[in-house]
Structures are given as structure tokens and as C-alpha cells.
């Protein structure tokens, strides 16, 4: 069995090198035109043809490594030695592959020192195509089979392959783009290293000015971003805590309704709240109109700027803090509170001296989540920011605006990355060192202590009006799509929906004439492609991280979490830089958008999978393995059936985030592949609120429908009559 796998992979790699175009094609593989030019045309030629007929000698060592692997698979030898041979050949092939891919680009050698070292190169290469990609995958697989044969990864080739696949894809699609942005930040327009330029770009008034504090003028975008993030972190944590306390520790009657609040931001494109705020507080919003009508006050643009963005972020991210803090409040062991009460502490001092200190790490966590969400937010600042620029919008204007200054964009992105990673590390340190593990394996028979009256009243006074107002905003957002022109003509109409989603029935069949259909279908298609891939990759990574022990496990976990902390804007810019030149040349394609979706959203799948998997006793996997279930079978028959809720979660999240995301893809969309969110943002910037709102509502409905569909398709977990036996027996 295992000696057949390396043969299959090396043959597959060689076949790809013989029968598929090595380089990327302008028109894509499906046209079929490449087939006739496989040998003769330099554009279409296979790997072998490139070497023999087109003088690309540097591909020869890569192909030789594949041949060496065939030999290693065929010679009769011990397991151990075959493993060593495959490992050597695979690694050599991979190193040579990467070296030639990075070293030789569109205009020969990619770096000056290579030219000095080897002389001018008579040749060039474009981005990697199908042949090259398959050869690369084959080399990776052979390398991991080699490792498994030598006894690494528990001797399991599947595990070895999975680890290398996940690691390689994270390196390629997360680490590499971010590295590129770092390099770009230190380069001038021609790609020459100029570290001084970074200082010059960053050390400007526009970024660091503090004039707003002293009264005159505006502050720099860096300070703007920080102020906003601090405010947002503090505000969302306070509100979230109030909600969590009400739900967990009082007998409040509408807990279910409050829980719904946590779902809303997940299915809402991030700028919808901003739009709704404009409807209420904007120049022609309800408040201004009322003030003008009743007291003759001139409408103001008050909402555009710090206030507006801050409010919008508070509304948008409080549910996230709520979600985090529900777990935190739940985690405070009731027994500890009961112990405190038996030690003569009344409810209030129990709350302040036991419960709150126990929640401190969780509160820090919620604060930093709010902080990171705020600095990563692009939708609200672009809609409501006005003159109040933040880093994410500055980066956007540096890339798409008249400036077209990639170096500046990269430098700003670097700054944003530093902020985000700083907060991320701070969070890891605080949560890592100060976490009180109050959820033990033992059953906790205590009853949660009700909140002291003062705290309960305070929480209710803050949270309930806020919840009502949030729901009201959503209500306005919905109604806003159903009137002619908000602020001037409140006649009910379906015009906006018709404009976006009109369908005409003609002799030629249905024609999708609505303005939104193009971006709508693109969004649905790409999200539907990305969601299962995101879920699969995320869950496999989770399975590896929780269930397998291998060298570098901690590094891999850290890498998957790291992409969590990188703001979408940074990822978007990074993708543009990394993937518009060979070896991977996919800017402007649908593929880059799908990849961006996958690697942006995978960490959540990983987290969800890890949480779910750590609830399933490891002995279930081991039982399957000792019962002759190989790793993939164990995964398929034992782990996945028990993980249904996590699968649903990962699929839903993968899809919904793909539909609602703005910040990352705003740099990647083209006229051909326009997405719903970017289309809506453009409508908003043009002041076409009606259409934007109608479209947003349609998206929310779509996502709710998809959630139900996925839930239905994946089904419930079947566990006999009780759902408690996940430990594999009574503990």
C-alpha cells in the first residue's frame, strides 16, 4: 500500500510535466487550445518541452528529482531507506523548484546579484501553470511520504501529507504575501531597497500630527486609528459585559432575543450599521429633519467623522464582545461565589471581590477583540468617516486613488500590521498568563449567584435601550430600502429592489437585467466555492493541531492564529503585491479572491474545530486506529460524524464571511469579478443609499437562507438517546 503511494505521486508529477502546460495561460485551461501547442508553442509547452525545445534548462533538475523519486519508489529496499531516498529527492526537487521560481522572472534574473553571479540570462518565465502546480504538489507529497516512511508523524503518510499541505499553503498564501508587504515597504518605486524611504513615508504630519488635542486642526491617521480603537474596545467591552450579565445572571425574560443580537453582525455586511446611522443622523436623516422642522436648526454633518464611525463600530462590534463575555461569565465557577457567600461576603462584595477579578482576563480579551475589530474595520470608516481618515481607508486611497503609491500603501499597511500584532501579542500575554481556569473537569453543582441589585439595574439601564436601538437601526435599514428617497420622499416603493434585481422575461428566456445581478452571482459563486474549501482546510488543520503530535505543531498553530490578527486591508494589499508577478501570477482572476476568502476565514474554522475536537475523547480516535482504521478513515468515519456542529459552523462562517467581507477584497475585485459588498460600497460613495440598502437586505436574506440550507444538508449528530456520551463512556 504505502510503497505504491510514492510511485503514484512521482508518476503524476511527471505526467503533469509532460502533458500539461507548465506555465499559466492567459485564457485558462478550459479553452483547450493549449493541447495542440503542448510541444511547439512557448506559451503552451509542457515542462519537458520547455527544457528541450525552448531552452528553459533550469526546469531540468526539478524533473530529474521526480525521476529520482520513481527510482526510489521502485528499488527493493527497507522502509527506512526508501523513506530517506524519497525525502532527499523530494527536498532537493522542492528547493530547486522554489529557487528557479523565485530567481527567474519576467525579465530573466529577478535580482541584481544573481545577474552579477551568473551573468545575463537568456530566458524568462511567467507565472506558474497547471503543470508546474501539479509537479509542486507531487514533490511536496513525496517529501511527506518520505518523512512518514522514516517514522515521523506516527508513520502515517496521510498525516504527513496533511501537515505539509496545511503548512505549505499557509506559508504560500499568508506568510509570503505579508513578507512581500514588508519588503515593499522598504523599497522605492523601482524595487530598489531604500530603508530611509520607509521612515520618510511614515514620519509625516498626516500620520502622526496631534493637533486635534491642542484644539486646532486634525490629528494624524495613526492617532485617529488608535483613538477609535481604544474607544471601541472600551465601549464594546462595557456594553458586552452588561448584556452578558443580564443574560447569564438575571431572570430577564427576553434572553433569546438578546442572543439573536449576537447573530446579526455575522450576517450583516459591516457597513449596514453605518448606512442605518446615516438614515437617522445624516444630513437628511430623521434627527436633523426633526430638528429643522421643529426648531429650525440647520442640518449638520455631525455624524460624518469620529462620532459616526465610533457609534457605528460600537453597534457593530458590541455583539462580538457579548459573545466573548457570555463564555467568560459562564466560566466563573458558581461554587467559588457560594464559597465567598459562606465566608460572610454579601452579594455585592462577592461580585466585586470574586466574580469580577475572575473575569478580568476575559474582559481584557474582549477589549482587545474590540480593538482589533476596530482597526481592521474598513466599511464603517469609508461610509461615515468623512474627513476623519484611519489607516485602513488611507491604504485604500493610496492604492486605488489618484496617488497610486504602492510604497506608501505598503508602509501604512506595515504600521497597521504593527498595531494589530501588538494588540494580538498583548492579548496572548494577558490571557495566557493571567487566565484562571475556573472550568474544571469536575461537575460544578453550585448555583449561579444572582447579580446584586445595583449592578443589575446599571446593566439593564445601559444594555436594554442599546439593544432596542440596535434593533431599531436594523429596522430603519430595512425600511430605507422601501421608500423613494429617504429624507425627501417617503412614498413606499419597490423601485430600489427592481433596479437591483429586475428579471425580464423575453423570447430568449429570462434576462437578468437588474444592476446587482452580476456582482450577486459572482459573490454567490465564489463564496460557494470558498466555503467548503475553508471548512475542509480549517477542520483538517484543527484535527492535526489537536490530535497529532509532530515537530513544529506549536509553530503551525501560531501561524494559523496569526492570520487572524492581520487586518483585511493589509491582506488585500499584500495579495496584490505578492501575486501580480511570477511565480504566482493570479491578480485579476477569480482564484485570488477565492484564495483570499479561504485564508482570511480559515482561522475561525480552525478555532471552532479545535474547540469541538477537544470535547471528543482522544481514545475514540485511537480505538479506530487500533481497529485498522487508517488516519483518513478515522477522520471520515469517527471524527467528522461527531463534528457535525463544527462543520456547520465552519461552512456557514466560510460562506457568510465571504459574502460580507469588504476590506480584503476591495483591492482584488475587477470589473469582471465584482463582488456584492464592493458594489454596494461604490453605490454608497455615490450617495445611492436606496439601492445600497435594498441590496444589503437581500444579502442578509440570502445568508439566512444559506445557513438554514447548510444546517439541513449536514444534519444533526446522531448520538443515541442522550447527547452526553461524547467521552466514549462514563467517566
Amino acid at each position: 500500500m504505502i510503497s505504491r503511494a510514492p510511485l503514484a505521486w512521482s508518476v503524476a508529477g511527471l505526467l503533469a510535466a509532460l502533458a500539461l502546460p507548465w506555465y499559466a495561460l492567459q485564457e485558462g485551461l478550459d479553452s483547450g487550445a493549449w493541447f495542440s501547442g503542448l510541444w511547439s508553442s512557448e506559451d503552451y509547452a509542457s515542462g519537458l518541452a520547455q527544457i528541450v525545445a525552448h531552452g528553459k534548462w533550469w526546469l531540468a533538475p526539478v524533473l530529474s528529482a521526480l525521476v529520482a523519486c520513481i527510482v526510489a519508489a521502485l528499488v527493493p529496499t527497507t522502509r527506512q531507506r526508501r523513506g530517506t531516498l524519497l525525502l532527499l529527492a523530494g527536498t532537493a526537487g522542492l528547493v530547486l523548484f522554489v529557487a528557479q521560481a523565485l530567481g527567474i522572472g519576467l525579465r530573466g534574473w529577478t535580482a541584481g546579484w544573481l545577474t552579477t553571479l551568473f551573468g545575463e540570462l537568456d530566458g524568462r518565465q511567467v507565472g506558474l501553470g497547471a503543470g508546474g502546480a501539479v509537479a509542486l504538489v507531487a514533490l511536496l507529497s513525496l517529501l511527506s511520504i518520505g518523512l512518514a516512511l522514516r517514522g515521523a508523524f506516527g508513520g502515517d503518510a496521510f498525516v504527513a501529507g496533511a501537515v505539509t499541505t496545511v503548512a505549505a499553503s499557509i506559508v504560500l498564501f499568508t506568510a509570503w504575501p505579508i513578507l512581500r508587504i514588508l519588503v515593499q515597504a522598504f523599497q522605492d518605486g523601482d524595487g530598489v531597497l531604500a530603508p530611509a524611504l520607509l521612515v520618510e513615508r511614515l514620519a509625516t504630519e498626516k500620520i502622526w500630527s496631534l493637533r486635534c488635542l491642542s484644539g486646532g486642526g486634525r490629528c494624524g491617521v495613526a492617532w485617529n486609528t488608535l483613538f477609535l480603537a481604544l474607544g471601541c474596545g472600551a465601549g464594546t467591552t462595557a456594553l458586552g459585559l452588561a448584556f452578558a450579565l443580564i443574560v447569564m445572571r438575571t431572570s430577564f425574560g427576553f434572553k433569546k432575543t438578546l442572543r439573536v443580537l449576537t447573530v446579526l453582525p455575522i450576517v450583516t455586511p459591516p457597513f449596514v450599521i453605518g448606512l442605518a446611522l446615516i438614515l437617522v443622523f445624516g444630513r437628511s436623516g430623521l434627527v436633523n429633519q426633526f430638528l429643522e422642522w421643529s426648531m429650525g436648526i440647520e442640518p449638520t454633518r455631525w455624524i460624518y467623522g469620529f462620532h459616526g464611525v465610533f457609534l457605528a463600530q460600537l453597534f457593530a462590534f458590541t455583539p462580538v464582545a457579548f459573545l466573548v463575555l457570555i463564555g467568560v461569565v459562564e466560566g466563573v465557577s458558581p461554587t467559588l461565589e457560594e464559597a465567598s457567600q459562606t465566608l460572610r461576603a454579601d452579594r455585592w462584595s462577592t461580585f466585586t471581590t470574586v466574580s469580577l477579578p475572575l473575569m478580568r482576563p476575559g474582559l481584557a480579551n474582549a477589549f482587545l477583540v474590540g480593538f482589533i475589530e476596530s482597526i481592521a474595520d474598513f466599511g464603517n470608516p469609508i461610509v461615515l468617516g468623512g474627513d476623519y481618515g484611519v489607516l485602513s481607508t488611507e491604504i485604500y486611497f493610496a492604492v486605488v486613488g489618484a496617488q497610486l503609491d504602492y510604497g506608501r500603501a505598503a508602509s501604512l499597511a506595515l504600521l497597521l500590521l504593527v498595531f494589530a500584532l501588538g494588540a494580538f501579542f498583548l492579548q496572548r500575554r494577558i490571557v495566557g498568563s493571567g487566565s484562571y481556569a475556573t472550568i474544571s473537569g469536575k461537575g460544578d453543582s453550585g448555583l449561579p449567584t444572582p447579580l446584586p441589585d445595583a449592578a443589575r439595574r446599571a446593566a439593564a439601564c445601559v444594555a436594554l435601550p442599546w439593544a432596542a436601538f440596535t434593533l431599531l437601526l436594523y429596522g430603519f435599514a430595512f425600511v430605507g430600502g422601501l421608500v423613494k428617497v429617504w429624507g425627501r420622499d417617503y412614498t413606499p416603493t419597490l423601485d430600489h429592489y427592481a433596479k437591483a434585481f429586475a428579471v425580464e422575461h423575453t423570447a430568449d428566456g429570462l434576462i437578468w437585467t437588474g444592476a446587482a445581478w452580476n456582482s450577486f452571482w459572482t459573490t454567490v459563486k465564489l463564496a460557494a466555492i470558498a466555503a467548503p474549501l475553508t471548512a475542509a482546510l480549517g477542520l483538517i488543520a484543527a484535527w492535526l493541531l489537536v490530535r497529532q503530535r509532530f515537530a513544529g505543531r506549536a509553530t503551525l498553530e501560531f501561524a494559523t492564529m496569526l492570520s487572524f490578527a492581520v487586518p483585511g486591508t493589509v491582506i488585500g494589499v499584500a495579495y496584490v503585491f505578492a501575486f501580480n508577478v511570477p511565480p504566482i501570477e493570479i491578480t485579476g482572476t477569480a482564484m485570488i479572491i477565492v484564495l483570499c476568502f479561504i485564508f482570511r476565514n480559515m482561522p475561525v474554522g480552525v478555532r471552532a474545530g479545535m474547540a469541538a475536537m477537544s470535547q471528543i475523547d482522544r481514545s475514540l480516535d485511537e480505538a479506530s486506529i487500533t481497529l485498522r482504521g487508517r488516519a483518513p478513515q478515522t477522520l471520515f468515519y469517527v471524527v467528522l460524524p461527531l463534528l457535525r456542529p463544527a462543520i456547520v459552523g465552519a461552512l456557514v462562517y466560510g460562506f457568510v464571511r465571504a459574502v460580507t467581507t469588504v476590506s480584503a477584497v476591495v483591492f482584488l475585485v475587477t470589473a469582471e469579478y465584482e463582488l456584492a459588498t464592493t458594489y454596494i460600497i461604490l453605490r454608497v460613495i455615490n450617495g445611492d443609499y436606496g439601492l445600497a440598502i435594498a441590496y444589503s437586505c437581500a444579502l442578509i436574506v440570502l445568508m439566512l437562507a444559506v445557513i438554514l440550507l447548510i444546517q439541513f444538508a449536514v444534519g444533526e449528530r446522531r448520538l443515541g438517546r442522550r447527547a452526553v456520551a461524547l467521552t466514549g463512556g462514563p467517566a
Partner: protein
Amino acid sequence: MSVEFHGVVKRYGAATAVAGITFTVESGTLVTLLGPSGCGKTTTLRMIAGLELPSEGRIVIAGRDVTTLGATQRDVSMVFQSYALFPHMNVLENVCYGLRRSGQSRDDAAKSAREGLLQVGLASYEERQPSELSGGQQQRVAVARALVLKPSVLLFDEPLSNLDARLRRQMREEIRELQQRLGLTVVYVTHDQQEAMAVSDRIIVMNAGRIEQQGSPRDLYERPATPFLARFMGESNPARGTVRRLDPTQVRVRLGDVEIDVANATATDGDAMVAIRPEAIAVERPGDAPGDFSADLLAGTIAKASYLGTHMEYSIDTEAGTLFATCPRVERPLAAGDAVALRLAPRGVIVVES
């Protein structure tokens, strides 16, 4: 189908769980790995299963070197401490699982699985979910699931630790009976010395990642090689004494004022560590003892006395230290403060270190 370990080491980073062990499990025998928690016995079992691969050394099962093979590729199956029954499958599906993964057709697998369930007396339970079974029944399903694969070696990882005391005795008898009836090679892990003695042909006692001693249950109990073993295999009182060799098979041990002749072939003359089994100490009232404080009686005072129904337990202060003794005579118990004379039976006095 023997199992052989040759100098096997297992490290986790800087920590060494198993520090170079060599042993052989003969075909058709039940061998127990016994030791306190953290001694490396479970790691050793998992290395036989292939759930862990050794850092050094060789593992041979049924004549085949399996050192770098994973669990799936070894002809071994295992009964887990938690039973690890798949909660989303019913009893029959659980027992079929290994057969189906080995490539058997659905019907063949079901047929063998039913035979397996019959062997463990659960023939009418095949449609049940694991959550609908009692602990003992779950245990039997786990055994049947491992058994139907007809493995070269069957492994048990503390299989009785989740059962109550009564059921524990019954299940360990069932396991022993099944092993002897089918001639299975079994490796069994437990930390319970009594359980180990009851089921095993041979016991391998481990401590701190090393093998302390191996042998038959009787060997280990009557001739423990180290103080650790004397403590761990049953209870014993540590005491200091002096040893003088009488002839190649006997030594004279002096404890306080008493001298006892003990069978021993290895101890050398001089001070020695001596272990005294509590059941080898006969506790007598001074008046009852013939010869009244004669040379072979150790004088003492009762420090504590407890009544345990079947026997009495005494702590007795003597010149050789405080000794713990059990006494089957419960009708005339002694009380704290009573003066006593202790007679030591030679088979319960063990020279462990000289």
C-alpha cells in the same frame, strides 16, 4: 505471537517517559505491566499498539520488526480505559468497525461481530446505543470489538478502573477465562497490585521509566528485589537489621533483640534493609506466648488498633521501629498501650538490600 522490546526509549522533548526497557511477552500468556502512575507503563502499552513510536530501540511483534509502523499496520488491538465506544454507532456497528476497515464485506463483518458478541454474552444487545449499556456491558462490547479482529496481541489499558469493586472482580475473572480459553497473547496495564496478581502469568513492575523486576506473581511477592518492590507488591514494614550468612541458602537476620533464619542466596554480611510483611507478624499477649519473651520474640507496645471486620490492624512500637501488622483474631482485640510479643514468620521477612 510474542512481543519483544529491545532497549526501547521514549522521550517527550526533554522528559524521558520510558528509559530503555527490554522484555519479552511469550505467546499465549497474559503479562501485566504494573507500576505507580507516571511509571511509563501506559506509554509502553501504547508503543506496543503503535499509538506512540519509540525514540530509540526496536519492537518486534510475532517475529516482525514493527518499530516504525503505525497502529493501523500492526496486528494488535486494544481495549481502552474509557472503552472508547463510538457514540454515534450502535453496538453491532461498533464491533463491525474494525472488520469493515480491514476490508470485510458488510455481511461477513456482521456475522463475525455477532459471534464476538456471543462470546462476551451480549448477543441480544446489538441494536443498542453505547449510552444505553451499563459500564460492564460497555466493557464487554469493547472487548468483543477488539477480539473479533483476531489480533496477534490484545492490549488492555486499565480496563477495570471505571467499574465498581464487585464488578471489577467479575470482569477480571472473565478476561482471564477468555484469554485462557482462546489462548490469547495479552498485555495488561494496571496500577492495582491485587488485580495484577489475580490475572497474570507474569508481571513486569515498572518504576520511573525502568523495569524494576519481572517474574511470576509469587516470585515478585515473595522475593522482591528492591525496597520499592517490597513496598509496592503488597504492604511491608521497612526495618533495619544485620545479616549473617549461615550457608549458601540461608542467612540469619538480627532485628533488635531477635534473630530469624531466612532463606536467601544473595545477601552479604552486614547492615541490611529488611521488609516485614504485616501478615507474617503474629501478635501475642506476653502471657500467652510460650517461653515468655524468649529470644525469638520481639517485644512491643500497641500504638493504634483498628477493627476491620475480617481482621485487626495494629501499629506496634518496637525496637526495630513502628511495625504495621494484621491479625485474623478479632474476638479478643488488643488496645492501645497493651504490651505485646511479636513472632516473625521467616517467609515474611525479606532482605531487600544489603
